[in-house]
């Protein structure tokens, strides 16, 4: 199958997202689509699969002008879409999720669970996933849910598969599995549209690359004939220096120290410390318990035992409010559900943890508050028209900066960043690293949980590795290697 999208344009109200974008893919190739956050990649794919109406342009499938009325119709024509945002029903069993709106029916019109289960299991086996399909999908971790999404798409005998940031929540291990599957699909003549912010993946897996910027197609390359620098240049419209800025840490006193933190069944005896000016990375496989440790430190979840010392004083943290009072900040893994109030203004998001500080005569001093917000927005270069814009109207990278601004503003001396650059484009990523540097220069202690091993090795001072809820060790980044970290992360001795 061959798809050719020509001169696609799309506007949401007066906001023109796509001006003139050309993109094509044919069977047996992996074509990567690159662009900054908000460049319109997902929008392009939504148009292709009938979820959005284009304002102009043509879509040709095998040379024939085509228009899909719905995602279902696109799928019936062999185009499958693994969405960037998980489209799951948390309370629904995995099986029901996988077959939603395409249930297999018996002769009598009833749902045929037996047949459906067999098909689902076959598809999951390709990805080496073994799960009880009757449990609610909400029980699974984000990564596992992503694997289900992929399996769902494999089920459909698709000729073209669109993968919109499929690896954002996956571990190295699973990414490997996925790439194996992609290669075998390719061999079977399936075409893949691959969207990712991870530069190294694209060189590993893709045949062609198309870069979008400002609603236009900038260039299409054969992957072999181009390089990272070129693509980054096309994406951001200028040259960029190194991917990871240099670290010149000056460590101060210990800002946060934990002693034998335990939450039954989740993690056990976690003891570590992080100093002023230090970036301590937390690495590990998906489900190793990193997020859970951080949530417990921040008072979101209850600890069963263990003590926390902040700035030399043992503290009791029973909810985030306590943690904030102890000058801890927490950028959560899930920006949309825990990081931001999407319907509220940028300003109202940024000042929320600090709001008590702006009370004068029992009321909020609005001017001081807005000055504070504007200052932070400038310092973190949040791209928005005004502080009164809804947070939900920002691109992913800018949303992430708003969350950062909120914790910088609350005066955090210990900043926990859980997957701070997940789903963020290269330009914004670099800005976030620069900001982290600036913060540590001022003496902030940063804990960075990351599943991106490159990032962990490229931008931290020390690396703590978790495996099945146990801290396997803390190693200096300078001496760590991919292999040494992976060995720890998989339970091996160093």
């Amino acid at each position, binding site marked *: 199958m061959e798809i050719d999208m020509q001169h696609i344009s799309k506007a949401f109200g007066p906001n023109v997202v796509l001006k003139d974008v050309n993109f094509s893919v044919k069977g047996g190739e992996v074509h990567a689509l690159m662009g900054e956050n908000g460049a319109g990649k997902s929008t392009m794919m939504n148009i292709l699969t009938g979820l959005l109406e284009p304002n102009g342009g043509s879509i040709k499938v095998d040379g024939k002008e085509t228009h899909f009325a719905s995602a*279902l119709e696109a799928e019936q024509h062999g185009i499958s879409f693994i969405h960037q945002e998980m*489209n799951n*029903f*948390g*309370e*629904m069993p995995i099986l029901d999720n996988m077959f939603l*709106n395409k249930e297999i029916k018996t002769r009598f019109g009833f749902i045929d669970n037996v047949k459906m289960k067999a098909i689902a299991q076959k598809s999951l086996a390709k990805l080496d996933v073994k799960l009880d399909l009757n449990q609610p999908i909400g*029980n699974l971790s984000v990564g596992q849910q992503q694997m289900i999404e992929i399996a769902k798409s494999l089920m459909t005998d698709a000729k073209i598969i669109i993968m919109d940031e499929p690896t954002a929540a996956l571990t190295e291990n699973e990414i490997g599995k996925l790439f194996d599957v992609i290669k075998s699909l390719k061999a079977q003549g399936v075409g893949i549209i691959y969207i990712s912010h991870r530069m190294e993946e694209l060189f590993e897996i893709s045949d062609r690359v198309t870069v979008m910027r400002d609603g236009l197609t900038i260039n299409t390359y054969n992957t072999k004939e181009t390089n990272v620098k070129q693509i980054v240049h096309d994406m951001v419209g200028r040259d960029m220096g190194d991917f990871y800025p240099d670290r010149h840490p000056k460590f101060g006193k210990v800002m946060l120290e934990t002693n034998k933190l335990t939450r039954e069944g989740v993690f056990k005896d976690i003891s570590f410390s992080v100093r002023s000016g230090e970036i301590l990375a937390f690495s590990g496989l998906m489900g190793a318990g990193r997020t859970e440790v951080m949530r417990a430190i921040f008072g979101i979840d209850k600890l069963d035992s263990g003590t926390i010392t902040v700035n030399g004083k043992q503290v009791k943290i029973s909810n985030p409010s306590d943690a904030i009072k102890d000058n801890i900040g927490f950028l959560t893994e899930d920006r949309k559900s825990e990081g931001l109030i999407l319907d509220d203004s940028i300003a109202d998001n940024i000042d929320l943890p600090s709001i008590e500080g702006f009370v004068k005569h029992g009321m909020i001093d609005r001017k001081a508050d807005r000055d504070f917000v504007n200052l932070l927005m400038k310092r973190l270069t949040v791209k928005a028209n005004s502080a009164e814009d809804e947070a939900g109207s920002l691109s992913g990278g800018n949303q992430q900066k708003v969350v950062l601004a909120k914790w910088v503003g609350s005066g955090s001396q210990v900043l926990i960043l859980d997957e701070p650059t997940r789903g963020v484009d290269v330009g914004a990523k670099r800005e976030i690293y620069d900001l982290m540097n600036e913060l540590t220069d001022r003496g902030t202690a940063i804990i960075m949980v990351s599943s991106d091993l490159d990032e962990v090795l490229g931008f931290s001072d020390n690396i703590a590795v978790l495996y099945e809820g146990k801290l396997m060790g803390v190693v200096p980044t300078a001496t760590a290697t991919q292999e040494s970290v992976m060995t720890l992360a998989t339970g091996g001795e160093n």
Partner: protein
Amino acid sequence: MDNQTETKRHFSFGDFYSKLGPLVALIVLIVLVSILNFSFLDPLNLLNLLRQVSINALIAFGMEFVILTGGIDLSVGSILALSGAFTAQLVLMGVPSFIAFLIGMVTGGIFGALNGVLIAYGKAAPFIATLATQTIFRGATYVFTKGNPITGAKMSNNFGFQFFGQGYLFGIPFPVYIMVLFYILAFILLHRTTFGRKTYALGGNPRAAFVAGVKNNKMIIWIYTLAGFLSAVAGMILTSRLASAQPDAGVAYEMDAIAAVVLGGTSLAGGKGKMFGTLIGALIIGVLNNGMNLLGISSFYQQIVKGIVILVAVLLDRKQAKA
């Protein structure tokens, strides 16, 4: 990574309640009432009880679908009254009762569809849309009946008309058959067909449902139509049973139906619940009402007891979603 998920969800009473709790609660209640008053278990009383339950149960079956989508329907009582009044008027005009019933039920479906359109295309919040139509349909009932009950010899001397709500078939009240029939149909629709799947999907995550190609608006309209239709069926039973259409029939029935659904373990946030639970929920309310009457508890205390029972059931089922 293998089977960690198995042990993830530890045993919780809430979980237990939403699976088996309603049934246990019902049994406890029945045992309690029977001990306090033996005549409760009299077959005749049980048949009466089932007949009393049938009206609320029918409304609750429709409400279950609505609540599964995360919506609510406050207009069911008014639809019941208005469609009952139509049917009574038709019978008085000489329309055969079978046809009059059918027309009444279809009318109920149409009123329900109106709710659905307001919610699906008007994008009105279900609570406020059906609050408005509750008032409108009730007003329309008063206008239509001029505030008087509709009755007459053509109703009270009409076997077919009377049989629907008052008749017995093999010693069992006819409304019980209707309730069982619609329970089976609703059960199949919810748990065995794609319509049911889509209902859950809509309540669980409407955006995702849309992405999966579910025609959300069409579904919503059908679901509210169903709720209106079943309320009208309940209205037919009531009108036939009383041989009279009361303009203020069904006031506050939505609350009993919602209570039945929630007692049955369905989450008001949508996406989670079972038809069986709703049947049990309706029975719990029926046993409560009947039992407290049998025990001669004053109506003042009856309200308190009913409220507490609802509260306890809901507190046990702590997994109710967001504040």
